[in-house]
């Protein structure tokens, strides 16, 4: 059977992404229609940069969601005779199917691997960012608001982590030997506690005048929080819902650990600035507690820069995960992680360039989308 020409490859790729195009069309047209009521998100469409960024990000989110529909072959299956074959090569033994972007050095379909790889990235990066933000916020608010010795200690600790070269820390923290000592579990035990603390304090400070409401919220947080905590950190969830592979936990915890100090510094700086405002003085005069002021007066007013940094940080963590994969420290040796695929492909780069280019471009376009989105958000939030 004939190989596909470049044009045919392009057309097949476009049709494979059909669910994504449909989803994108629906989301964009709905957003455009309800634009005046959507606040900052609606304003995003005023800037061209922001719109392009949003489309790129949505494209990858939808691709990760519909990955099962988009892939043409099993991303782990090795089909004999397909090793390093060029893009558009017909699959042996399967009439009418092609390796759209060629085969890798283990005769697996590169296109399907790249698509499945988006799932790995998009399930880890945003979650790790959320955790890093919760840790950073829980520590940064009191450090900035209270100042004094607490601030000095926490700032010293965060500078300590920041002075450490990221790559070295990963080489030390993400190894099979470390996993067997349980260091990641201890780190997880500390880091995963912060979201629970944050939410408990959040509801306690807001509703302590209405005990019934407060009791419901706080107990809900505690039950769900510690349920997830036992599963994620110690893998002891009685119901078996929450679970993380030891390897994944190791990477996840290290990524959160590296990023939390930067978030801490940002939150602390913003708090130092905002606490001099009149509405904070007004709340103090009203007799509000310190945690109420921090979480319900200062934090909402710091949201602009935090949202922007959130987008940038997801991109940065995506790059970081790619770096880890590049050095063979990825989630698992078999997984179609982008960084790992690039690493495998680069060894044969001068003979078979098609191995490493697709994951490289995929990673770049996702990070570019996130950066453009952050830029658009910054532009729009400055206008208010």
């Amino acid at each position, binding site marked *: 059977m004939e190989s596909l020409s470049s044009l045919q490859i392009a057309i097949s790729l476009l049709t494979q992404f059909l669910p994504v195009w449909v989803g994108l069309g629906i989301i964009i047209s709905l957003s455009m229609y309800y634009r005046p009521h959507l606040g900052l998100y609606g304003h995003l469409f005023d800037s061209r940069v922001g719109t392009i960024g949003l489309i790129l990000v949505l494209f990858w989110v939808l691709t990760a969601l519909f990955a099962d529909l988009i892939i043409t072959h099993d991303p782990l299956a090795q089909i004999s005779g397909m090793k390093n074959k060029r893009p558009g090569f017909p699959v042996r033994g399967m009439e009418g199917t092609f390796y759209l972007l060629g085969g890798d050095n283990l005769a697996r379909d590169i296109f399907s691997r790249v698509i499945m790889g988006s799932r790995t990235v998009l399930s880890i990066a945003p979650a790790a960012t959320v955790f890093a933000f919760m840790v950073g916020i829980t520590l940064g608010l009191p450090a900035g608001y209270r100042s004094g010795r607490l601030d000095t200690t926490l700032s010293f600790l965060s500078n300590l982590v920041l*002075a450490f070269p990221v790559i*070295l820390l990963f080489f030390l923290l993400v190894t099979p030997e470390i996993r067997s000592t349980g260091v990641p579990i201890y780190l997880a035990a500390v880091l995963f506690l912060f979201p629970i603390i944050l939410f408990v304090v959040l509801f306690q400070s807001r509703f302590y005048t209405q005990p019934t409401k407060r009791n419901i919220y706080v107990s809900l947080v505690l039950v769900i929080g510690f349920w997830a905590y036992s599963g994620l950190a110690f893998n002891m969830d009685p119901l078996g819902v929450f679970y993380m592979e030891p390897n994944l936990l190791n990477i996840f915890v290290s990524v959160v650990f590296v990023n939390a100090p930067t978030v801490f510094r940002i939150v602390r700086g913003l708090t130092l600035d905002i606490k001099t405002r009149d509405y904070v003085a007004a709340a103090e005069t009203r007799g509000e507690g310190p945690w109420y002021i921090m979480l319900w007066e200062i934090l909402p007013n710091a949201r602009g820069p935090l949202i922007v940094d959130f987008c940038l940080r997801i991109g940065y963590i995506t790059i970081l995960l790619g770096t880890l994969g590049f050095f063979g420290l990825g989630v698992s040796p078999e997984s179609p992680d982008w960084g790992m695929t690039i690493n495998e492909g680069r060894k044969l780069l001068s003979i078979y360039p098609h191995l490493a280019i697709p994951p490289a471009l995929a990673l770049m376009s996702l990070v570019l989308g996130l950066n453009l989105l952050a830029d658009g958000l910054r532009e729009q939030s400055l206008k208010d």
Partner: protein
Amino acid sequence: MWIFIVKRTGVMALTALCLTFLVFFLTNLQPNLEKLAKTQGTMRMSDEAVDRWLEQRGYKQPLLVRYGEWLGVSPGFLLVKDNGKTLGRCVKPGADHIPNYCGVLQGDMGWSTVFKDHVSSIVSKRLGLTGWLMLFVMLVMVPMALIIGVLAGMREGSRTDRSLSTFAIITTATPEYVSGVVFVVVFASSAVGLRWFKGSSASAMDDITIANFTLPVITMAFYGMGYIARMTRASMAEVMTAQYIRTARLKGVSFTNIVLKHALRNALIAPFTVIMLQIPWLLTGVVIVETLFNYKGFGWLLVQAASNNDIDLLLACSMVAVFVVLVTQLISDIGYVFLNPRIRIS
């Protein structure tokens, strides 16, 4: 000013102490030591043999004692075997007398178990190679970034600004392992045909040529450039809205003169700090680029030390890295004061 520097140096020393202890702790965890014993001895050592191996080389002492040995504040471990052979931290092949203390304070960085050589000589050789890489990266990256930033920031919102800013965003979204791969395919692979440069820089370790050094340099410069350019742009755009620029314009000074003589000096204060703080970030790039282009410098050394759990070498590497971070922070703070006389540090 001097009090500030002394204070900062104190904090730096404390930071370095904490961080080296952290590295020491992580490299000396039991499984890591067992791995070390097995790679240094034989792979099929029994558990007792591993234990004995560690015992005889002093790895079984308490962690703090051993950290003290490495620092040079507690005497080095020494064991005289039955057959008269001596084993210990301070025993180096080829040396006649065994010193009592051999730590960092005595100027002894230790012995590399992988390369079978003094750590200080290995590290200085590899650092020299990386120094060349960094020099060329800086020479390409800084002027390019400043030009892009100034051109974009001098007329905010113009078409030049928009396209240059987009370019800057694209570069920050392209990590070294992506741009490196793309550059190799375009400029060095036999498949595409543009064989301008070489895809490997192994030969650059002896002799740097345009063919073997261009790709690693532009790969690193490309990723670092965008951030500096964006900061320069923001700083330039802010300066251009200042009162004194308006005055100069109203006086009838030409636009070129305003940019070059009035705006530029003030606009370059902020980027200076950014450039200094960017240097430690280049380390990750160094590691990636040296792996990708097979250039055996400091980054390559770091990978070797980490993957073989070569404790002394890894500690020396982290000391160098931490030192670079802290010194660049200090320089950026002091430089900022010199460049911007409105700021005083107490």
